[in-house]
């Protein structure tokens, strides 16, 4: 009979299995972390399992890495308690701290205290480098990076609004795009799909090193003033779940990273302590730009 009514039986089997397979009871939950994907998204698990191993050895609890594809996905995983600590961008870190009560900023890269963006232009625009934000970009086509990127969107938009008072980016430029990430911004400006774009200065430098920049097609026309960026944030309930002092232990572990191979994964020279207040400026700017409700 089974052979004659395979579909019906399969569906019955499926229904039965769905009912039987309840949620598996969890014991001490493993510690999970993630990192926002800002440039090389391939082989994420491979690269970050080195970190998982390091954390596991130092913290004495099982540590896992959850790969995510987008900035908001990283924040959601943190809000959902699917991950307990994470490497965020400036803005996403602030989003995370606002979403989960008592979350703590643990550390930032040495480079992140004074981070900058670079504005790049297709050479066909004949724009020249300048120290002031060049007014000649008005009316051209322009691309940001990811919508929730600090160096690819939040601060650049803030500086643009300062340079063109009373105007939104949509009013300054003839077309505004969000490329999704810094490397893609470079590609789009280099191909001329957009005339001007803005990206993370560290990614710009590493793209030059990797040979992905053709100076005949694209060049930097402006570097932004400094602002704080990437940082590690831990959930507020870490001590409650893993024991008193655990958050401190995680912070010490991050600050203790000295292996150049590990640091190279984040393109940082070392990690230094940071606290929530260091990122107050991002909250203010994001509110001005309209990304947070007043």
């Amino acid at each position, binding site marked *: 009979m089974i052979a004659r009514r*395979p579909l019906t039986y399969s569906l019955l089997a*499926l229904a039965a299995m769905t009912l039987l397979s309840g949620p598996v009871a969890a014991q001490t939950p493993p510690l999970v972390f993630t990192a926002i994907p800002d440039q090389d998204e391939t082989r994420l698990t491979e690269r970050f399992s080195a970190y998982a191993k390091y954390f596991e050895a130092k913290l004495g609890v099982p540590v896992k890495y959850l790969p*995510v594809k987008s900035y*908001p996905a990283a924040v959601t995983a943190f809000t959902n*308690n699917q991950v307990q600590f994470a490497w965020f961008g400036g803005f996403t870190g602030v989003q995370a701290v606002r979403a989960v009560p008592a979350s703590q900023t643990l550390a930032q890269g040495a480079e992140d205290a004074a981070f900058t963006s670079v504005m790049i232009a297709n050479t066909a625009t004949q724009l020249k480098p300048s120290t002031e934000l060049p007014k000649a970009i008005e009316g051209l086509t322009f691309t940001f990076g990811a*919508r*929730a990127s600090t160096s690819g969107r939040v601060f650049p938009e803030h500086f643009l609004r300062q340079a063109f008072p009373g105007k939104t980016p949509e009013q300054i430029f003839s077309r505004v795009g969000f*490329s999704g990430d810094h490397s893609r911004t470079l590609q789009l400006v280099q*191909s001329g*799909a957009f005339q001007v774009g803005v990206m993370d200065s560290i990614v710009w430098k590493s793209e030059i090193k990797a040979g992905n920049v053709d100076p005949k097609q694209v060049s930097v026309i402006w570097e932004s003033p400094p602002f704080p960026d990437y940082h590690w944030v831990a959930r507020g309930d870490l001590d409650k779940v893993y024991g008193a002092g655990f958050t401190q232990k995680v912070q010490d572990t991050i600050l203790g990273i000295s292996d150049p191979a590990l640091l190279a994964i984040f393109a940082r020279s070392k990690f230094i302590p940071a606290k929530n207040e260091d990122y107050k400026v991002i909250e203010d700017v994001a509110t001005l730009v309209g990304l947070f409700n007043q």
Partner: protein
Amino acid sequence: MRMTYTSVSSLLLVSAILSAGIADIAITALHPWHEMRRLLLGILHPDLRAIELWSVVWTVSFAVLGVGIAAAIGLGLAIVYGQSRLVRIVCTVLRSVHELFWALLLIQIYGLGATTGILAIALPYTGVFAKVFAEMIDEADLSAEQVLPHGTSALSAFAYVRLPELAGRFKTYTLYRLECGLRSTLVLGFIGLPTIGFHLESYFKQGNYPQAAALLGVFYILIGTRRLWARPPTLPLLILASLFLLPPAIGGGSAFDNLVRFLGHDIIPAPLLNGAITSWSTWVGLGGWFMPILKHQIVPGLINTLVVSQIAMVAMAVLALVLFPLVSQRFAGPVGQIAGRFGLVVVRSTPEYMLAYVLLQLVGPSMLPAVIALSLHNGGIVGYLMGRHADALEYRLDAPRGLNLYAYEAVPRLYGQFLAYVLYRWEIIVRESAIFGILGVTTLGYYVDAAISELRFDVAVVLIVATVLLSAAIDQVSRRLRQGLRLATLPTRLAEEPTDQTARPVLRQA
């Protein structure tokens, strides 16, 4: 205006021309060839080492379980579909939300993992299965019902009369839907679920084309060989294997807590969260919250979605008319048929999103990449179907050949069927156009993407409701037009075998 093939065709054409007048269409890329050359070289030299076996397994298991659950529940709902208005509304809502949006919402509750992946397929597909199974039940031959004893219950009548009649069609349709499910699970990878799409999008975005080509190749093979590995006898094994091979959950988090937070906080409009429900000013605040969303997001998003879809629909129709002789044995010979099969697998398995992504580089940012991608994908499918119909027609022995056969016999005889396909795919195009928002085309999906990036789920939900209303409206208009043209009984689904059902044209009455 009387509904005729001519009037409906002209109406659609005029809507597309008007849309083209206000559409944002521009070619801006200056030097796309450098990247295009790398893309072509990559496709010619696929890097097989990039294939992650587990992502292939999980693509199949999410699709099998999602489609399986949807088919089972859809079958149950189909029995009462005709009687219950509530069931019809629920099913319309379920299928009007794109699986990508379902996934974005489900991630808020279940996180990135198997539950989200399976449910994001199961929910919209349940709506589709219920509707399609219900249509099949309505179309079934009911002569056996005449001999049932008086007082037979509806359930018995269904089980003993309709089910035996319909089981074969249900089976074919379910297996065909599995193929759609595979394509959907691939796309879910783009937002972070661990399917082939996860790696494909990464490689693609980074310009690692040899790796991307290998993954896409695996996917074509998966779709192309579906008839070999997904058949009735292998189904129980497929389902069991899918259950046992699901990805392990990474990370905890309580789905219940998340659900409470999501429903009780995240999606409640901001003014209602902060103000007292009884206070008048709260409701004024709600109006002040909603009006800018309506004015600056919903209205422009709706207009742009329609503009993209109308142009894409007519471009698809023209493309299908041009393409179908190429895949018809009658016109192109046996070689044409093989080429047609192969072309169809490629054209319908390549996600429109990928096409648009390449085109964005090639022609620059505007609506153009979305329009081209939508019309190529759907035009390929309709063209293939039309080619099959052209071969199923009975021709006279002295029928003309070539262009004469095409213009004076094949197209006129198939035109009703052609319109049925075009009108049917209209809704699909509108639904799919949402996904291009994520690439920056300002359809409704663009604003959904923005709201989610800013963690404004209250806004995202309002926008998704707007997409549901639009899809449902287009579905209604399309159905009315098909009924008005007396095309409602013609096949529109890819899984149906073509027969010589030359549509009888609606005669103009003097």
